[in-house]
């Protein structure tokens, strides 16, 4: 079994590197903001590259790399492939890396059209491709969905990676956790929320804090085929729900809903 082999290969204190691509780097910030929890993580790993936190570089292989950001030009694709070649385990973290995130909105337009709108008439001087999630370019071993990542999930995934165990992103809707937290449903408040179609695993973080679910963790594998009842119960327009989903989920059109086996 592949996973077992990985755990044997990982040294006692694995060399871990953090890289970022097209992103706001907010997920890195979540890690640096972990506080005391960060000390526990640093007790288990040896951080060898992390642009936002340290200036050191590493020229050998990596036991684990964490990739933030989506892939939006040829240079990024090449750079990602090189990192993958040097990494035993690759973790995509954050919505940009896992599902393309908000950067995927670029894919709603004709590429040249959007390039011209951003870079002006000389747009051809600036390389740009349709936005891709990391797994649409290289093999991804673990995913930590979300914008930003939910820090407790990062810790869980890291532990799985260090032990060579698989981690499965929960495939239940956010409602499943939201109900356990006994929040008043956003729909009861008269607000539309993407919880019923979005992958759980965030402990309904946003709703716990009075916000709606924006669908940042990606759509569940098998969403309700017929959402008309939900939509009619709460007087919603199907286009509204679809448009809300497009904010984070445009890249999924390039693969089967961001799911890999």
């Amino acid at each position, binding site marked *: 079994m592949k996973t077992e082999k990985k755990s044997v290969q990982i040294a006692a204190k694995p060399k871990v590197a953090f890289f970022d691509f097209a992103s706001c780097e907010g997920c890195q910030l979540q890690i640096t903001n972990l506080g005391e929890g960060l000390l526990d*993580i640093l007790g288990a790993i040896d951080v060898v590259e992390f642009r936002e936190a340290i200036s050191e570089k590493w020229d050998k292989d990596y036991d684990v790399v964490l990739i933030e950001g989506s892939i939006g030009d040829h240079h990024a694709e090449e750079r990602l492939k090189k990192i993958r070649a040097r990494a035993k385990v690759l973790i995509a973290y954050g919505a940009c890396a896992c599902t393309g995130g908000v950067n995927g909105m670029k894919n709603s337009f004709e590429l040249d059209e959007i390039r011209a709108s951003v870079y002006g008439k000389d747009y051809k001087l600036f390389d740009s491709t349709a936005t891709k999630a990391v797994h649409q370019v290289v093999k991804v071993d673990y995913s930590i969905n979300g914008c930003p990542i939910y820090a407790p999930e990062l810790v869980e995934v890291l532990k799985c990676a260090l032990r060579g165990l698989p981690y499965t992103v929960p495939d239940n809707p956010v409602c*499943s956790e939201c109900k356990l937290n006994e929040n008043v449903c956003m729909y009861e408040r008269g607000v539309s929320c993407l919880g019923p*179609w979005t992958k759980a695993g965030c402990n309904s973080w946003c709703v716990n804090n009075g916000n709606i679910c924006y669908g940042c963790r990606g759509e569940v594998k098998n*969403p309700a085929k017929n*959402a008309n*009842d939900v939509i009619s119960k709460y007087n919603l327009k199907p286009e509204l729900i679809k448009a809300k989903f497009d904010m984070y989920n445009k890249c999924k059109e390039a693969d089967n809903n961001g799911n890999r086996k």
Partner: protein
Amino acid sequence: MNYHIIMKDEFDGFIKKLAKKMKVCAPVAKGHNNFAFEEVTSAGEIALSYIPTILPPKKYFMPQREKMLDFDLTEGKPKDAANLEAPEMAIFGVHTCDLAGIQCLNMVFSEKPRDYNYILRKEKIFIIGLECNGYCDGHASCALVGSHYPNGGYDLFFTDLGDKFILHVGTQKGEELVEKMGLAKASPADMSALDRVREGKKHAFQNEIGVDPKKLPEIFAKGMDSKVWKDLGERCVSCGNCTNVCPTCYCFDMADTINLDMKTGSRNRAWDSCQFETFASVAGGENFRHERAERQRHRFYRKFKYPLDKFYRSFCTGCGRCTRTCMAKINLKDTLKALAAEHK
């Protein structure tokens, strides 16, 4: 016949005294006609008139997430220590539907192998029921399953008589509390007032689906292939809201979590739902209930058929929570009516 009286103006003192002895939880308004059992320290915080809370009081008996044991792999032989924390507490204001729910869970978790975490908590929880003199709303179906009247399962039971509550003492623990609080015995006039409330309920509460509950087992026995399930399957979102809010759903998932030291960790359980696609999937990629229709059907059978065969009682308590919470307007009463209509 052990009945006592507490005047409404003494009620705040009762809750305050009780809160000094132990944690007291009661229904609290959350806005948007939603309620939840939460800790209170005075009567003013309590919503005496409330529709069933978002989560039933089962959350105090089997918490949403619960640590079962700690383990330590440092030494050659793994060590483990069971986590059996059960603080003393009181739940005030439990409606009869939820009392019925707790009775169902008691039966399930007392079966061998016994669930010690559940049983220990149950022993420490003082239950104070509260009668519904009328319907909470149109989603309830308590008269169908006969849970609109008290049927045990409480230490004390409150019925509102206008300017006072009449209390029925259900247990020794309840008796002791009433004595300590120095509550007066109910007078014959109070007893007739209680009778009038109960008499009024006979008219106010009527079988909500117009189908004899005695016929339900037969209807379900014949209903496996009903098109009702297909219809539910087409609408269901698989969010698991219906089972999470159900007072008698008790399925859980258990997992071990290791700490970052990679030596110590814990075994935890959390509520699971038969409505999730992963629930009945097994190694090799098989799934016993792959379709939403099968999963919804399973939920109904787990309320109206299987527990009747096993425990001789309905595991639907008529609280109506599943209907209220359903994103897709799946309605328990309508489903039962449609199923019964097929077998006329």
